[in-house]
């Protein structure tokens, strides 16, 4: 409700902080002002929008789970590496963040596509990834997992290792230490990283379009639908964007409410 009493923040800090908030909030308010609210219900009733919404939810859930299952272990291992290895592995892990999404899609396509470097062999085995819902999930995971990895690794590096040692002296095997000490200690960071990864996946557009195509009900997620809508009517695209923003806000606020208790 207010600034925590035990630590004073310099007053002047509120100036740049407000500016930062304004930079983000003002465009969002602009959107709220301009958006044709009346059209939203009708728009949401169309099968195209419903398919897109539902597909987005499913794929984002899947890619977030995938990001957690693979990304958390990577973050833990990464936080234990030192020297050149750490720099190398971290750089690789972060690279998808820097790729323009379209390039990310292209890179996936030339690798996992039916004629791709790896995909051609998968294809022989009857596994075709490109242009399926699986491709959407892979594209989303590829671009969003790095955000989870980098957030959690940073937090892990600043935890007190002595706590893990103490847990081990109490008889906890490495797996138990991981589950009951290491991960809970960085709980907020995991929550934060997951939120960011989910958000990134939900907004993912370029890589999905390129690697998975845009087929209603199969690969046309909400951002793709918005993009398509824009070809015909910018206002409708904005209206759908509001739906996306609302969805994202709810999904981001929800875990905070759940964990408020334990803070």
């Amino acid at each position: 409700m207010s600034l925590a009493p035990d630590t004073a923040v310099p007053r002047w800090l509120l100036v740049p902080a407000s500016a930062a908030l304004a930079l983000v909030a003002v465009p969002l308010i602009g959107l709220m002002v301009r958006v044709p609210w009346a059209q939203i219900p009708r728009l949401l009733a169309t099968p195209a929008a419903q398919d897109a919404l539902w597909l987005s939810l499913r794929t984002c859930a899947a890619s977030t789970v995938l990001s957690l299952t693979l990304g958390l272990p990577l973050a833990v291992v990464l936080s234990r590496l030192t020297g050149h290895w750490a720099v190398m592995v971290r750089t690789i892990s972060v690279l998808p963040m820097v790729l323009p999404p379209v390039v990310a899609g292209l890179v996936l396509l030339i690798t996992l596509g039916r004629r791709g470097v790896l995909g051609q062999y998968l294809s022989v085995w009857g596994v075709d990834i490109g242009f399926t819902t699986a491709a959407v999930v892979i594209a989303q995971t590829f671009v969003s997992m790095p955000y989870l990895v980098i957030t959690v690794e940073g937090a892990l590096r600043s935890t007190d290792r002595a706590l893990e040692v103490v847990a081990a002296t109490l008889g906890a095997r490495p797996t138990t230490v991981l589950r009951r000490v290491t991960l809970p200690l960085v709980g907020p960071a995991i929550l934060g990283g997951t939120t960011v990864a989910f958000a990134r996946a939900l907004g993912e557009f370029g890589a999905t379009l390129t690697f998975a195509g845009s087929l209603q009900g199969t690969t046309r997620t909400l951002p793709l639908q918005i993009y398509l809508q824009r070809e015909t009517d910018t206002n409708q695209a904005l209206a759908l964007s509001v739906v996306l923003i609302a969805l994202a806000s709810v999904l981001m606020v929800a875990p905070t409410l759940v964990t408020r208790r334990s803070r």
Partner: protein
Amino acid sequence: SSQRSSATLVVFAAASLTQAFPRIAQGFEKDHPGVTVKFSFDGSSSLVDQLAGGADADVFASADQVTMHRAVDQKLVASAPRVFATNVLVLITPPDNPGHITGLNTSLAGKRLVVCAPQVPCGDATLKLARLDGVTLKPVSQTTNVTDVVGAVTTGEADAGIVYTTDATAAGSQVRTIAIPHSDQVVNRYPIATVAGSSHAAEAQSFVAYVTSASGRAVLSSYGFGIP
């Protein structure tokens, strides 16, 4: 067509066909019961990349012939491409024309003009047309995508833009359209072909036929396309 009662035809089509093609498909589906048509719309060259990447598609409709040639060169299409529509360039401004643009002339000087980049078909055509008319354009942006040109004008961000007549038609009252002299000499042609390796080759063939048929043309011209 009645033997295979259920087939889903996937059509890869240029983004500028987003509105026209679903209408055509409605008619096609009525004529061919059991066949469902689904679309994937994107920039033509993206679609070629996707085809090259192994996308499962049955029909490919490109917004220009150069891109279709790339598909042909990579042996991605099964049939000889057929031109089914044409498009010409027009100048658009916001409805109130704040820049007082009168045409592709000196009224554009110092105004914000947005065009397509020369690397993409509409930009290539824009360049040719400007040469024909003896004007040197000083655009503030050269986008990759016609939609971005339309968007810049409808939001009022740009004073003028050069787009296809179909885009102007689709934008309706959001823009004012000004014809450009000699535009009929720089015609953009839309070719269509069936995709190599299609599992519904027959249906794909009939869809191509339908698009080039009278009913297909009728729909296309209602969206502002020219008929070859």
